[in-house]
């Protein structure tokens, strides 16, 4: 029988997923520093929900449970979703979002390798549409809060929605810079005066910049480990920078500068961790460039003209739809063939 090759040298799927999780750790540490330990609760909740939902669905679909749970892809989805949600999100929000991501967006399409859409982004989009108010209210970073919550307060708030008696909800939450910028612009304020607000940091959101920087660190690790290819983050960031620069150049009073867009919201999480999901993304090198550039442009347009403060989730989902088309039209030239 001919079953060569007899040798392999490849990381397992589990190893790849574990490295992605490892690359998220700096971001999580920064997150805890900026927003407190509540995020750890969200991550734990999401992880448990994801594994339970995955196991249940695998059982219903009569698939072997252990090898598929061990591939860790569900955990990656859970962590990404938890990191995309507002800190201190109520427990049921995390559970519902994760459940939807794993059950509907992943398992019902056939499980790992078969989902056409990024599961974490599907979960996020469903929550954003269903619970827009909770999803757009972010707590102020600890260093800005009038009454910083300790971990027990956060835990209590996540599970029961109850705050310490002397604190009101409005006192701990505020709009995100992207959101704030948008609403202030509609009130005919100028960008320069808007970013005087204390919620803005040097480039993006105060505090948020730190997390963004940590994501960049993790992303560089993934690049170095060859878990992700350079095409996706490069094209995404370049497209986002280019389009925001173009708008900024035309009217700097009305449009924020490119650095703000790169450092705000989920830009870098998207660049290194979300659009790099191989299953729902394109496979050809040229396709990856087009895909990522598309996400970058759409993200910007949704941020500036759309109804939601950040556009990453919808941009990714829209571009996911285009993947088969992109792949079909970006086939590389095969050895010995003329240009296709």
């Amino acid at each position, binding site marked *: 029988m*001919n079953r*060569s*090759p007899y040798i392999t*040298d*490849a990381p*397992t799927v589990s190893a790849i997923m574990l490295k992605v999780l490892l690359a998220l750790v700096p971001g999580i540490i920064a997150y805890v520093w900026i927003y407190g330990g509540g995020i750890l609760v969200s991550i734990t909740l999401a992880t448990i929900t994801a594994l339970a939902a995955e196991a249940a669905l695998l059982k219903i679909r009569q698939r072997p449970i252990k090898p598929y749970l061990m591939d860790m892809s569900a955990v990656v989805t859970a962590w990404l979703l938890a990191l995309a949600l507002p800190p201190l999100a109520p427990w049921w929000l995390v559970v519902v979002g994760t459940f939807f991501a794993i059950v509907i967006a992943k398992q019902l399409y056939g499980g790992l390798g078969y989902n056409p859409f990024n599961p974490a982004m599907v979960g996020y989009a469903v929550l954003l549409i269903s619970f827009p108010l909770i999803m757009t209210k972010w707590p102020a970073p600890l260093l800005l809060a009038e009454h910083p919550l300790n971990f027990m307060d956060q835990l209590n708030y996540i599970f029961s929605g109850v705050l310490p008696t002397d604190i009101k909800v409005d006192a701990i939450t505020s709009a995100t810079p992207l959101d704030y910028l948008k609403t202030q612009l509609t009130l005919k304020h100028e960008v320069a005066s808007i970013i005087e607000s204390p919620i803005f940091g040097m480039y993006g959101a105060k505090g948020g910049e730190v997390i963004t920087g940590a994501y960049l660190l993790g992303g560089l690790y993934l690049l170095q480990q060859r878990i992700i290819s350079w095409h996706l983050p490069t094209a995404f960031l370049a497209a986002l920078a280019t389009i925001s620069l173009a708008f900024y150049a035309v009217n700097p009073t009305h449009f924020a500068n490119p650095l703000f867009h790169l450092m705000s919201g989920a830009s870098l999480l998207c660049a290194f961790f979300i659009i790099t999901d*191989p299953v729902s993304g394109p*496979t050809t*090198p040229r396709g990856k460039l087009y895909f990522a550039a598309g996400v970058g442009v759409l993200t910007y347009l949704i941020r500036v003209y759309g109804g939601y403060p950040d556009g990453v989730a919808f941009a990714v989902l829209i571009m996911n739809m285009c993947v088969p088309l992109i792949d079909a039209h970006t086939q590389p030239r095969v050895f010995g063939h003329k240009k296709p």
Partner: protein
Amino acid sequence: MNAIINFASNLIRGVSSNKDVFKFNGGVHPRDHKAESTTRPIAKLAIPEKLILPLRQHVGYIPKIKVQVGDQVLKGQMLAEPEGTVSAAIHAPTSGTISAISEEVIPHPSGLPDMCITLTPDGKDTWGQLHPIDWRHTDKKILVDSLRESGIVGLGGATFPTHIKLHSNGKSNVHTLVINAAECEPYITCDDMLMRERADEIVKGIEIVKYLLGAEKSIIGIEDNKPEAARAMSAACVSDDMLVKVVPTLYPSGDARRLIHLLLDIEIPHDKRSTDVGVQVFNIATVLAIYRYFEFGEPSISRIVTITGNVHTPQNFEVLFGTPLESLVAAAGGTKQDTTHFIMGGPMMGFDLPNEHVPITKAANCIIAAAPGLFAPPPPAMPCIRCARCADACPVNLQPQELYWFAKSDNFEKARDYNLFDCIECGCCSYVCPSDIPLVQYYRYAKSEIIATDKAKEAADLARERNDFRLARIEREKLERAQKHAERAQAGKTQAKVEDASANKSEAESTVSSEATPSVNDKQAAIAAAIARAKAQKLSSAPANQELAAEKAEATNIAKTPEMEAAGLSVNETQVKQDKQALIAAAIERAKAQKLAAAQAGVVPKNVDNISASVQAEINETDAIREKAKLSTDNKN
């Protein structure tokens, strides 16, 4: 756009250090495991107790046996002569007696037995008459023709008869001879050792081949993990038109098209051969065999084989063809305890041998004793996560993840569109797959399916052609009859019409005469013809729907006899059955052909019997292959 991508890719990958070498896409770096078998010199393996010589040791037609059981033969005597152009002779590796001509298990992935000549050596090892040829003073055509008798085939593993590669018809335009000494597969060291020990003879062989091809220069490509071999070859190369070029170690640089690209920056078009661009490739061991054939008259009776892996003393041996594997294993100190089986070839493209008794053949460059510690059984395959590592590793720049998807879903047309047949089955994709998917097996399966379908289609086309001829003949005969009929009608009315009716009746495949004269006798003739046709079609072929309907109407209108109705009914039944077969036949044809067939079927009845007889076998075969491939590659949990 592409330029930018390439530039960026090169920046990240690090620009190639050797500017002489033109890299191809992908490739992998497996651990080479070559040092194990290069510590000892090439040794001559003793003559075994019996030699089993398969007739099928090369690509092409099997040679014709020239000896009988009981014949005494001398060393180097031809036992089987080449038959047809693409064929190679088999010679006696030593002197002795032909003890059997029978089916034996041969070293082939199928593990099936095939025709072999068994020779019992007499131990004297007496050479027969040898005829060295002074190649410098002999006509090229005579030299190449004599090579046909040498039994020499490509010893790199491809086993293509060598004389065909040198056959030029006097208009050779080969300017460069590439000598493939890359030996990129792990474990294999037979070419390495040959170059270290016999560089002088190899260089003489290269000179002969260069002369035969009329090439201007020759380039010897050696991977940089064989510095001793490269040094030996450089030292032996004295002329200026012979160049040793060291290429970076990267599997599969030993693939001919990849090597030509590496050395010459020539990308051979996928539908062309290397000679179309003026390049011919020979393996190092092959040129040595050519040298020994002209210089000493020695035909191809032995080769260097690496025995390595889980044996005590891995080494290279000069082994007579037909030597049972167990003798070679014993010479290498025997196997270590946990040996499970043997692999012929390298770990990237080799295959499992059925047992220890199979003979060493012309293709056997390496035998690896396998053990779980060396080659771990693959873990169960996981789903493809589209990570495209396979695409990065593919030396042909294919998209293995797409091909896998198409092969798995039996979408063969699409697989062909994505250039499945450019796949060289090097195994790089499986080597880097995180999900441990046996990708190459999927491609082999898809290829065999497509080839089987193409064969079936060819058979169907042939049948259709035959049917068209038959219909044309019927049409012609009908016209001739009509003409005759008209002549007779003029000659004598009553007499002629009776004759016409009987003639129509006897003609089984006739159709109703289009010529309708308003007479009673003619109507009777038409009825008779309809009966005859109904019976005939019941036996041979099903008419197309339109015709059947018309005929049925005709039959019920005209005939009231029970016999007639029964005939109509059974036609209907066979129609249903044969329609089903026609559907199967049609399903395996390509869309284009289907359209054509439908257009034809609208006009003429399809000769389904003709197709089903030949095609049904093909379909069964296809199903069998599909079943087998499904079993062997089933990773759908």
